[in-house]
């Protein structure tokens, strides 16, 4: 190929393997770009936490409602199943032309998928409550709502926490798909690293994503242990 030898080093080709050093891990990169990395990380974290919080606030009443009126549960689970089949990328593409706001579009998609996981898990948890326990509560004269709030929901808590962990880990990964509409948190860094062939940028963003997901998972696991001390006692008593 008659490529000019004195090509300016700034030309960004599709693939430029002749670059002198392009390590996957570079502390130098992290130091030099800490502002940018922290900004995208912050974007990623706030997006994730906001989505999970909104989803939780909506999912629990929805699941409780479906539990109180079982007739509602079938259609609810079926709808969530169909919605969950739709890829996030397609959802972003369908929603963005109408909203025209990148952040809101991504947030909406994230909330929706987290919601589906949470509703299902909460419902499973509510259904899995030991009938002997609810019978006892009914025998004590508990009404439907008092039963829900003081007996069924606390008993379903482990399942809710499991759903929460599942939802938050997949939300952290899902944020990166927002790249499609130009708002993908750390995914944005990966994409820029790809277009400029900068390996350290891709790897740093990937590792941060993994670390973020595992950290949130660990925190939720610990929170789960704290709020359900009885389940630990039951295990150790066995």
């Amino acid at each position, binding site marked *: 190929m008659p490529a000019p030898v004195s090509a300016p080093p700034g030309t960004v080709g599709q693939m430029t393997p002749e670059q002198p050093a392009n390590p996957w891990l570079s502390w130098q990169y992290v130091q030099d770009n800490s502002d940018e990395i922290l900004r995208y990380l912050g974007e990623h974290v706030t997006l994730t936490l906001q989505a999970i919080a909104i989803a939780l606030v909506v999912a629990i009443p929805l699941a409780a409602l479906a539990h109180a009126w079982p007739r509602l549960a079938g259609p609810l689970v079926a709808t969530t199943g169909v919605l969950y*089949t739709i*890829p996030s990328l397609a*959802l972003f593409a369908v929603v963005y032309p109408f909203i025209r706001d990148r952040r809101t579009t991504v947030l909406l998609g994230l909330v929706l998928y987290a919601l589906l996981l949470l509703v299902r898990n909460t419902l499973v948890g509510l259904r899995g409550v030991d009938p002997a326990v609810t019978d006892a509560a009914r025998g004590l004269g508990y009404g439907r709502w008092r039963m829900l709030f003081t007996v069924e929901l606390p008993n379903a808590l482990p399942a809710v926490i499991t759903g929460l962990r599942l939802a938050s*880990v997949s939300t952290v990964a899902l944020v990166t798909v927002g790249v499609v509409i130009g708002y993908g948190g750390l995914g944005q860094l*990966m994409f820029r690293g790809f277009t400029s062939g900068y390996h350290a940028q891709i790897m740093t963003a990937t590792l941060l994503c993994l670390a973020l997901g595992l950290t949130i*998972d660990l925190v939720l696991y610990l929170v789960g242990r704290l709020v359900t001390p009885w389940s630990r006692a039951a295990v150790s008593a066995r």
Partner: protein
Amino acid sequence: MNEIEAAIAWLNDPLNWSGKGGILALTGEHLVMTLQAVLLASVVALPLGVVLGHSRRAARLGTSTVVLTNVTRALPTFALLTIFASTGVGFGNTPTVYAAAIFALPVILANTYEGVRSVDADIRDAATGIGMSGPRVLLQVELPLALPLITSGLRTAVVQVIATIPLAALVGGGGLGIIITQGFGTQRYGQVLAGGVIVALLCLVVEGLLALGQRLLTPAPVRALQGS
């Protein structure tokens, strides 16, 4: 709404359907990539899952597959895609197929393992009791009973891969994602909308067809067993 009209107009243009970059060709490419990825994942995951589930001694290895599944869930597909696309794994669709296969693998593995492992111990005992050898127990008893879980794992994997492959368009690959990224690039949001709808429909249709196929292929006794 303006965008809906634009999307319908775009979908109505026969030029968008035919030809090299048309919807039909892209859908075909999309499905071929899906098939490659799922086949690649199955070749590794199916035998591994069967062996892990069958052998009593491999139980500890089996639980580690569940851990593996959870870890891959935290790793964004897009990260793997960019990493593969910017290394020597190959150009165009190849890195996408590999990345998608890696994400389909734990799904198939976990379901196969769980399916074979969770076969009722009494049934397995009875099979050994009437003189069946280990491989025969596996082939004639465990596998048929594990089939529903295995196929549902494959089903999930297929739909998941179809949903993942549009990301390839961002890193130089093909498939239906091209419609969406091109639409964004040219700010034709009607086209973006149409692309999103096509991908979503493809997922729903394939999921429906596979569910139907699974129902037809499951032997009647096993179906009755599930129903009870």
